């Protein structure tokens, strides 16, 4: 239809004898949710780390829009519009939820070498942070320290942290885990409306959510993409049944 917003071509990553990523090519287009699934140990985490910038691939390129971001670091990619959430939540636990989200609003407004004006009461930081929390139904937890939240709530804070960056692409790593049926349903609903604004690369174990949400699905097994297509095609694919759904 249109130019992919995020694309990977021919990614390779090897750790010693282990080929963790083997010739992976994937893309993400505007308005879609592209789900990446695969059994444990398939190399999803390694792939995400390469997309986010914490790992360099041995070969291959990653493009954000037209821009080659293969050689850029995590912070640089985030500034270019790559928002992500972590599988194991990665937040400053002693700080309030609000302050965790505000750091993103601060980053969005340019460099942080501003030494004088207090940040905590700055309306230009508070407004977007509150809006992101509102959207994730977390407004009542704004002043709660992250340490006091449940695992599911922390995942939602992560998504809020990503949203406040006004990203061009969202990379969500198992956002449903630990949410419970009600939270899961609410997040599914949110992602469905969200994808119109920001395309989402979704890594998820909850197969119901994947099949309901994803416009396309790629299946990663032993470092390679073994199948690719819409939900129906993936369900029918015998290789996927063998490698993934089978066991």
């Amino acid at each position, binding site marked *: 239809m249109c130019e992919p917003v995020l694309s990977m071509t021919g990614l390779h990553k090897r750790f010693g004898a282990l080929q963790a990523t083997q010739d992976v090519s994937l893309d993400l287009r505007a308005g879609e949710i592209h789900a990446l699934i695969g059994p444990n140990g398939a190399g999803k985490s390694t792939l995400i780390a390469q997309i986010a910038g914490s790992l360099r691939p041995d070969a291959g390129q990653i493009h954000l829009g037209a821009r080659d971001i293969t050689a850029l670091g*995590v912070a640089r990619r*985030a500034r270019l519009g790559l928002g992500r959430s972590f599988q194991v939540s990665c937040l*400053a636990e*002693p700080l309030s939820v609000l302050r965790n989200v505000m*750091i993103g609003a601060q980053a*969005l407004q340019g460099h942080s070498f*501003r030494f004088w004006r207090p940040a905590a009461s700055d309306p230009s930081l508070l407004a977007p942070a509150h809006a992101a929390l509102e959207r994730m139904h977390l407004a009542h937890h704004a002043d*709660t320290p992250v340490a006091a939240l449940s695992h599911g709530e922390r995942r939602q804070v992560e998504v809020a942290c990503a949203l406040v960056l006004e990203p061009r692409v969202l990379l969500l790593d198992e956002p449903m885990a630990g949410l419970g049926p009600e939270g899961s349903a609410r997040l599914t609903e949110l992602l469905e409306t969200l994808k119109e604004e920001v395309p989402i690369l979704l890594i998820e174990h909850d197969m119901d959510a994947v099949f309901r949400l994803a416009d396309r699905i790629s299946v990663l097994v032993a470092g390679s993409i073994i199948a690719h297509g819409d939900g129906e095609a993936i369900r029918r694919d015998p290789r996927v049944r063998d490698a993934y759904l089978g066991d």
Partner: protein
Amino acid sequence: MTRLHPTTNPAAQRPSGTGRWLDRQRLVHGTLLALMLLAPVAAHLLGEVFYINLASRIALVAMAAVGLNLAIGFGGMVSFGHAAYFGLGGYVSGISAYHAFDGSLVMGLPGSNDMLVIWLSAVLLCGLLALVIGAISLRTTGVYFIMITLAFAQMAYYFANSWPDYGGEDGLPIYLRNTLPGLDTNHALSFFLVCFTGLVLSLALTSRLMKSRFGAALTMARLNETRLATAGISPFPIRLVAFVISAMITGLAGALYADLNGFVSPSMLSWHLSGELMVIVILGGVGRLYGPLAGAILFVMMETLLGGLTEYWQFFLGLVLLGVVLFARQGVIGWLAGSERHV
């Protein structure tokens, strides 16, 4: 970087109802400052110059520790080499006075005994040194960071020791205390007020800094650098700038310290001094704004009181320090002011 602080703390569990504790904190902080100011004034009225100079010493050691606390407590960078900046500040004072005294040039420039010139030079040179040391050291983390900052300070120590022009291991006397326009710096109470002002300004600067956007980023760099990077802010430059500011504060304290003693020697650069500054930060309470002041008061008082009783006072200092590290991790400020450090 080493995770410096426990991930959960009681204060963080309390949403925003910290009003009462805040009052107690302010009371303690205000009392400390008032004591620092009033004790030397009283000593002046009683004609006890020794105690005025003791207060100046406390103020300067506290100021040096305020600088270190910015790196260790607020930035999570455990520098074991802040003596390098303290000593460099001291040597700027000494060398400048030396050349002003005999009218010779240093690197083509005349010496000066104007404190304003000396302070500016000390702050700039310490900033420059910290920029180089920080840029290399901050590539490492954990124990390596501790050790490499120590190594750089040792480098400075041995350099001062073996460079004969400025006294080598014997050090360099400052025959006449450097001057300040409109103030008699030889007057003990006036000089104390200069030191006290330096301390108050460094506290105010740190407080303001930690509330700013820069402070928010630095706090995040300490608590979770991945989160900071994921938000789009590179932790390295944030840390580096904090490290440089920290060194500048400690260096300015060093410049004044040399003037207080009328003497600068390699001992101002020694690893014992780095260790003592760390001890002061810990005794007071890591990452608490007024911790260094409380720590410095305690440290210098112990040195003076115990030192008056026994030559081996450091033996007891060791015992106290061991007790604090093992059993009282909140430090003096935590004990006095209650409540948790503000994160």
